[in-house]
């Protein structure tokens, strides 16, 4: 569970996240949606202590992200950034192995190797394990980084736009994977996502942001309505029920 209390971030005189108080339930997929510049990435970075808070607090599973030692927090909270560039030459298995760093400080044990192999397996990367990361396609590299976060074995995983650069097939696979992490492994997954329909189909909770504030939060049935979506995006969006999922139609 993640608890935000009055979380605030300012750059100079502009406040980009404005006193957000919210609770993200444990053991589910929560998608943060909203227009460009709403403050989604900033909020996620604050939750993952990549950005310091200017005011307020964030607790992840009871740990205050501003004061908990990094190593301790890293055993509870795993993060995947939007861009994942490597300047060093590593194999996929080496990269995934870094996920164990918070547990072993760089000295792998037998248990760590097991975690690594299973994370590789879970992401269907066993065949690529000895390839160098810089020789992979964008989608494969994305999966390698997710495997690293998985090997980290945290209860909470935060992802910033994990569908960026993925084609349709890989986007679907990514969302199914995140669903499996929650359904099979009981993890808490929070992601920033632009496609409201992916968010609607795969999330337990939607969190809508606008102008640095969380203006709506609830299950897809509550958020995926023309009125709420108009409030968030200033666009008229029809919502159709297709095979049990709420799909927004805004293309024409």
């Amino acid at each position, binding site marked *: 569970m993640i608890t935000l209390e009055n979380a605030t971030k300012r750059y100079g005189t502009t406040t980009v996240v404005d006193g957000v108080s919210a609770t993200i339930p444990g053991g589910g997929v929560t998608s943060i949606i909203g227009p460009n510049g709403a403050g989604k990435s900033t909020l996620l970075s604050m939750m993952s*202590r990549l950005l310091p808070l200017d005011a307020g607090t964030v607790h992840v599973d009871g740990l205050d992200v501003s004061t908990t030692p990094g190593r301790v927090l*890293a*055993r509870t909270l795993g993060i995947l*950034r939007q861009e*994942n560039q490597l300047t060093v030459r590593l194999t996929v298995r080496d990269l995934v192995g870094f996920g164990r760093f918070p547990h072993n400080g760089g000295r792998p044990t037998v248990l760590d190797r097991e975690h690594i192999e*299973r994370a590789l397996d879970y992401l269907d990367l066993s065949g690529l394990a000895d390839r160098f990361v810089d020789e992979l396609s964008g989608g494969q590299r994305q999966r390698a980084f997710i495997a690293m976060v998985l090997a980290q074995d945290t209860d909470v995983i935060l992802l910033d736009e994990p569908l960026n650069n993925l084609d349709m097939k890989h986007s679907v696979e990514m969302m199914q994977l995140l669903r499996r992490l929650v359904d099979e492994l009981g993890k808490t997954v929070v992601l920033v996502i632009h496609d409201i329909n992916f968010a609607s189909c795969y999330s337990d909770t939607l969190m809508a942001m606008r102008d640095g504030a969380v203006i709506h939060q609830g299950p897809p049935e509550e958020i995926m309505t023309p009125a709420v979506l108009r409030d968030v995006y200033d666009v008229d969006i029809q919502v159709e029920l297709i095979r049990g999922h709420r799909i927004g139609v805004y293309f024409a």
Partner: protein
Amino acid sequence: MRAKTDPLPTAVLQSTRKPVRTVPPRAWIVVLGTAAAALVAAFLLVGLEGNLAYVLPRRLNRVGAMILVAVAVAVSTVLFQTVTGNRILTPSIMGLDALYVLIQTVLVFALGARTVLTMPTTARFSIEVVLMVAFSWLLYRWLFAGGGRSLHLLLLAGIVFGVFFRGASSLLQRLMDPSEYIILQDLFFASFNRVDPTLLYVSALVVAGLCVPAWRLRHRLDVLALGRDTAVGLGVDHRRTVTLVLVICSVLVAVSTALVGPATFFGLLVSALAYQLCSRFRHAVVLPIAVLLGVIALVGGQLVLEQVFAFDTALSIVIEFTGGIVFLVLLLKGRVR
């Protein structure tokens, strides 16, 4: 909630590990270590004649200075490149060498060449080390104050400072007596022949003392090399580690430069080669390989120049020339990140 130590529940563990078809890094360490030891022995023993009590300590002194510079420059370069996330810039290129030249120029300009050459070496050494550490520390602190992600600012600032120091030096050199300038010029290239034994011992203590924390940081540095955000996500205290590494780097480079003189591209040469030899990036292997390559380049180069070409002082020029070419090649290949 499942137990924290439970691995992910999947089917059988697959063991599809294929060997990577490259020389394992540890084999490189053995090969390079043997080569370095052989070169050091050869340097000490080849053509050893005359008064041993005079010749041998002198040779030991010179080879000691070379090993010390190899360690200081290789370690500081690899560490600096890891925390700044680039493979092209080194502390020397960041303006430190230009500052060394400026210090020498100012000293010669203000006191005259004779005074500078005859003043106590410890005094000159201390002035240089203190000024260079102070400069690099101020530069890094100022640059990393804003959250530690201003690499491009760091690069730009280093270049601007370098240009400024060089400009100031050449202005003073133009105003200087030509005969003083000729003496001054001699100080601009690294030389292992004029190293004072006392300074060598002090420097060796400092360098050894800094290599201990550097080595203990090796696993954290591996994580740091993945980039700031990933490192923070994996629990590394980014700010503290970067600060510590920059302190280590600034002292290492200052000591080495004050001891033998500037070696702008030497660090780049050994780090670029070390990365080439390491099929997988790990500080635990890159650091020793870079150090050994440094020892081989300096001791081997000096040996060849002295024994084969009967030259004495040209080594640093040859190394700088090679390193400069590596620098250009890296730049042209666009590996600036």
